[in-house]
């Protein structure tokens, strides 16, 4: 898929993320918009996984540690054909499987997450199984920068390098904001790169909204043979909707009708430029 095609897809994904969050009157809007370009590149360019091979032991795995931005993942999975997009009309509704965090009741979801700091250990175990069995699948996980203070991440990071899991790629959606404020103010985890490097990882930085750079970065995996790879994706919370960008209140803000109309108009403009 060309970068232009990926860019068009992302506009469409953003439109759908907002549509279903507005319909549900709930959702993690800002973080879904910051990570959706990465998910776009992963599912349309990198991962060997789709509805046809989802039960195959050889498929690539994607485990979303920052489970709260599941709306972005749902929209991408629907686009890949894991389930009918119309199912998302039930998002967060009574009895729906499409709840506010990933669950395996939804086709395409590998692990139930939602409590932060769980995705990395799960991914380490899944990647280690491939090494033990000599299988070539890869494991990707996405963490939020705000969840890095969870100690379990660092337990997982240690073990990943201990077992030389170069089939594991962790991505940090580094949008710099969490529910209470800037991640550097809440509990500063900088420098993330040097910390992971000290834990035995090979780290690369990338603009998390630059499709070409994302493709190039993932094409370089593993960054070093024998080491787990970390991609620090520099992103903008609320990306693509001007009044949401870098605004804390859109962590889980739901647009009112006027704001929604405005957002759709901005997305239409973005789309027009891409034609």
């Amino acid at each position, binding site marked *: 898929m060309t970068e232009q095609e990926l860019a068009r897809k992302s506009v469409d994904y953003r439109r759908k993320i907002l549509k279903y969050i507005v319909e549900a009157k709930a959702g993690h809007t800002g973080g879904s918009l910051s990570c959706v370009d990465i998910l776009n590149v992963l599912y349309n360019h990198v991962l060997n996984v789709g509805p046809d091979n989802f039960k195959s*032991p050889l498929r690539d795995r994607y485990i979303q540690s920052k489970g709260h931005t599941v709306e972005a993942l749902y929209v991408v999975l629907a686009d890949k054909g894991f389930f009918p997009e119309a199912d998302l009309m039930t998002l967060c509704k009574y009895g729906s499987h499409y709840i506010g965090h990933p*669950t*395996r009741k939804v086709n395409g979801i*590998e*692990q*139930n*997450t*939602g*409590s932060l700091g*769980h995705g*990395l*250990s*799960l*991914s*380490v*175990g*899944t*990647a*280690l*199984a*491939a090494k*033990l*069995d000599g299988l070539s699948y890869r494991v990707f996980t996405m963490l939020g920068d705000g969840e890095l203070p969870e*100690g*379990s991440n660092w*337990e*997982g990071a*240690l*073990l990943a390098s*201990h077992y030389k899991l170069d089939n594991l790629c962790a991505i940090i959606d580094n949008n710099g904001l969490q529910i209470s404020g800037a991640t550097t103010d809440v509990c500063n985890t900088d420098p993330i790169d040097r910390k992971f490097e000290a834990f035995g990882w090979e780290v690369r930085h990338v603009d998390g909204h630059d499709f070409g750079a994302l493709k190039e970065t993932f094409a370089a995996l593993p960054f070093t043979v024998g080491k787990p790879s970390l991609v620090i994706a520099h992103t903008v919370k609320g990306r693509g909707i001007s009044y949401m960008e870098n605004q804390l209140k859109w962590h889980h803000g739901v647009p009112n009708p006027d704001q929604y109309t405005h957002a759709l108009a901005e997305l239409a403009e973005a789309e027009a430029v891409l034609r």
Partner: protein
Amino acid sequence: MAEITQNELVTYKANLDVFSGTLQELASTDKTILVVTSDSRGSGKLVPFGQKFPAQMVEIGIAEQNLVGVAAGLASTGKKVFAVSPACFLTARSFEQIKTDVAYSDNPVKLIGISAGVSYGALGSTHHSLHDFAALRAVHNLIIVVPADNFETERAIRLAAQTEHPIYIRFGKKPMPLLTEDPNRRFEFGKGSVVREGNDLVIIGTGETVYPAIQAARRLETLYGIRSTVVSMHTIKPLDYELLAQLASSGVPIVTVEEHSVYGGLGEACASFLMQNGFRNSFKIMGIPDEYTVTGSQIEIFHHYGLSEEGIAETGLNLVRKTA
């Protein structure tokens, strides 16, 4: 039912040893069996396992949250994963990983809590697991099994290997006599085992309290002619409601005995069922009271809190006399 009476503590192995032996036997033919430890291979008597099957053992280091998360990831790929760690740490430090990564995600990890209860009695409360039944009973999609003797341990491990859903098994490290030599003995998760029968009293134990319960039953019969039914309620969840109803239906007094806090464990699980189903039997929960637990050997702590032949007999006698 035939009973063991001689030289019992010498003849039998610790359930821990039976666990490690059974696992070696299973691993020799089933290469999907994987043992995951948190620097606990020595405490888990798993050094020989690691020597024989190095490719089937994964060391995590002292990081129990990671132990359970990684075990869940491994199990998601179809491996039969036994995550082995002292029960105190396994069920407290990594409680959320058990709840979320194992139970909620339905990754079929076999969580093995070693040196459970007050097996590490002298080491203090950090090393006691007197909370695990209470905590884990409230987690959906987790079988909780507490084998009493070598027979139950071996069967539990073999069944666990075949179980496609999460399970927690805990046991201690002291040699445990056989509860019975009944050649027709059976073991099934969720089905309590009646190991002695009598019409005057019911004593329901679990794990390493079942044997003192049998000793108490013998004492009551010898000294007072009181005949007790003794049950090994090896599965705390799902609890054997059918057996409970059957035992309670004659109206006899019931005593429960567990190596766990009196809060939230076997006793309260039984009481809840009985009360909600119209049974009004005299009822007493024996376990570790809500206090700073005394320290000492497991047997000393059992004696201190009456989880002993004498203590259980006395409680049973009082209940029978009160009821009569």
